[in-house]
């Protein structure tokens, strides 16, 4: 056998020819699945953890007792109905809420340890059921992470799907009328980056959900580049994070340095920078182990943004009441409201939520439909992480 490599090349099965056409159905499915979640917008940025596993491990086979979600009009309920405020008359303006939170944060102390441990429950909301009897299902997942304080250590994460269930009492009634199915065949809207309308710009990706919780899975991984722990417009190390300034103006300048690659002198920063600062800051206050005075600085910085407004006292998906602030974002799928719920007694951020404030024509979901929420249930420094 004179040239075994040449023989091997010739022996390649024809079906492995890279020029073989891709089956159109396969192509459509795979593209839709891949693009089911928004792409990361930063370079070299650690994977976003904001939404649970819509994109991963979707079972291909259809389940029994499945219900197909469609985009027909006449949604049965408005999930916002669940959010009856304990004292609806009280609507604090954003500045008052944020400055009070800053005061509380300033008063906090912390003792750092080897790992920053965070527990959160994320929820995604989907309509299901036949036209005229539609209801909303919430699919929840618990996420725990242990982020090492020192470079070179591994980050540990633990996840568990908590199961799907009707979102609100009215949804539960509709679910019972539908025979109380334990399996839902949901179709997750997929954002097409090109189109502008529901039909032309949105596809649906199948997702199955059951009422049963899933197993607890623990995994660990090295840090990105060995030391990057979070994303703040760019990947940052724990040291970077701990070195952030507490003065709101300095903090804003530090964050804006990483905004779209522009410095603070750039004229192109003005457009959308409030939006961007809000998004970065909500990550900072809900997720990251910044010093308490930096969290206070972040609240004060947000208080200085014109587009941030107070929307009153509401409850998060865990039923906890807090004062909420919000900004709106216009997108191809309508106006989204990003809201942050703050516990006035501690100054802690309770939850980070996205609401469909104004759907586009053809979307079955009513205005005020909760799309996703993440409730932070615990954050602490801890000396150890699970293996």
């Amino acid at each position, binding site marked *: *056998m004179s040239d*075994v490599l040449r*023989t*091997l090349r*010739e*022996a*390649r*099965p024809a079906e*492995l*020819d*890279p020029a073989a056409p891709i089956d159109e159905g396969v*192509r459509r499915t*795979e*593209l839709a699945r*891949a*693009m*089911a*979640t*928004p*792409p*990361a*917008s*930063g*370079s070299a*940025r*650690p*994977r*976003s*953890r*904001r*939404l649970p596993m819509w*994109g*991963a491990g979707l079972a291909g086979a259809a389940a029994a007792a499945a219900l197909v979600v469609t985009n027909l009009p006449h949604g049965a309920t408005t999930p916002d109905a669940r959010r009856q405020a304990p004292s609806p008359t009280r609507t604090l303006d954003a500045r008052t809420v944020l400055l009070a939170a800053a005061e509380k944060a300033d008063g906090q102390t912390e003792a750092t340890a080897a790992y920053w441990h965070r527990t959160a429950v994320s929820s995604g909301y989907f309509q299901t059921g036949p036209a005229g009897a539609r209801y909303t299902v919430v699919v929840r997942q618990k*996420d725990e*992470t242990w982020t090492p304080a020192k470079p070179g250590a591994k980050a540990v*994460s633990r*996840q568990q799907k908590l199961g799907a269930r009707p979102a609100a009492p009215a949804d539960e009634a509709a679910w019972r009328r539908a025979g109380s199915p334990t399996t839902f065949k949901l179709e997750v809207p997929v*954002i*097409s*980056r090109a189109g502008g309308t529901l039909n032309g710009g949105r596809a649906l990706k199948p997702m199955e959900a059951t009422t049963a919780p899933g197993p607890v899975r623990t*995994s660990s*991984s*090295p840090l990105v*580049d060995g030391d990057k722990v979070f994303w*703040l417009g760019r990947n940052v190390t724990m040291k970077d994070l701990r070195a952030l300034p507490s003065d709101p103006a300095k903090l804003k300048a530090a964050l804006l340095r990483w905004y779209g690659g522009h410095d603070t002198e750039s004229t192109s920063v003005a457009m959308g920078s409030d939006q*961007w600062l809000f*998004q970065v800051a*909500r*990550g900072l206050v809900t*997720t990251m182990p910044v010093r308490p005075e930096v969290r206070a600085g972040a609240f004060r910085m947000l208080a200085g943004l014109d587009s941030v407004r107070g929307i009153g006292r509401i409850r998060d998906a865990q039923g906890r009441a807090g004062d909420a602030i919000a900004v709106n*974002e216009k*997108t191809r*799928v309508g106006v*989204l409201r990003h809201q942050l719920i703050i516990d006035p007694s501690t100054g802690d951020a309770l939850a980070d939520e*996205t609401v*469909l404030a104004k759907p586009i024509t053809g*979307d079955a*979901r009513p205005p005020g439909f909760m*799309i*996703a929420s993440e409730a932070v249930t615990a954050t602490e420094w801890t000396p150890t992480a699970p293996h």
Partner: protein
Amino acid sequence: MGDEASDEERFTAMYDGCRQRVWAYAVSRAGRHVADDVVSETFAVAWRRLREVPDPALPWLLGVARNVLRDGHRAEVRRESFAAELRRWAPRPTGDIAEDVAERLAVLRAMAALPEDDREILVLVAWQGLAPREAARVVGCSAAALRVRLHRARRRLVRAVEALPPDASGTGTPAGPPAGTRRPGDGGALRRAGRPQMGIISEERS
């Protein structure tokens, strides 16, 4: 944020250009039962990390597929699945066949007897047509190290062909490499999907 339309166009072009190669790589590592899964997961990762994908994208994508395979499918499963694939490609000859055909079948069968790492290098070079530098990127070693490994893999392939029984029957389960023959450097830096990594804010849009 960012130019969304061009993200999608870029991703779709990358998918169209590389999908079959990623699939072929996965099939030749672990058979078709595993390959579809691997392709789906690989492109989901590529979409999420689109801004990190270099041009040309193929070595990067194959590197992701490699990690997906390693993390998602145990070595025995990969080996058995590949063995099943091989039986499709190289069935037992049923009569006289031309010498060149026999030679190709023999090489395919010999592939099944190689350690997984050897097979991977050979597939990347001979079937994917990657240059040593590109193949090195996929497996995470230097181009020089890859040349050495290719040389050794080629030598072991020749030996494996010579060691085939005279009737060259490829039936039954081909001998696989010993389990757990993983080399240092097998652990890539790429992360698997679904691992919460505290980035903030990809704005969910319904």
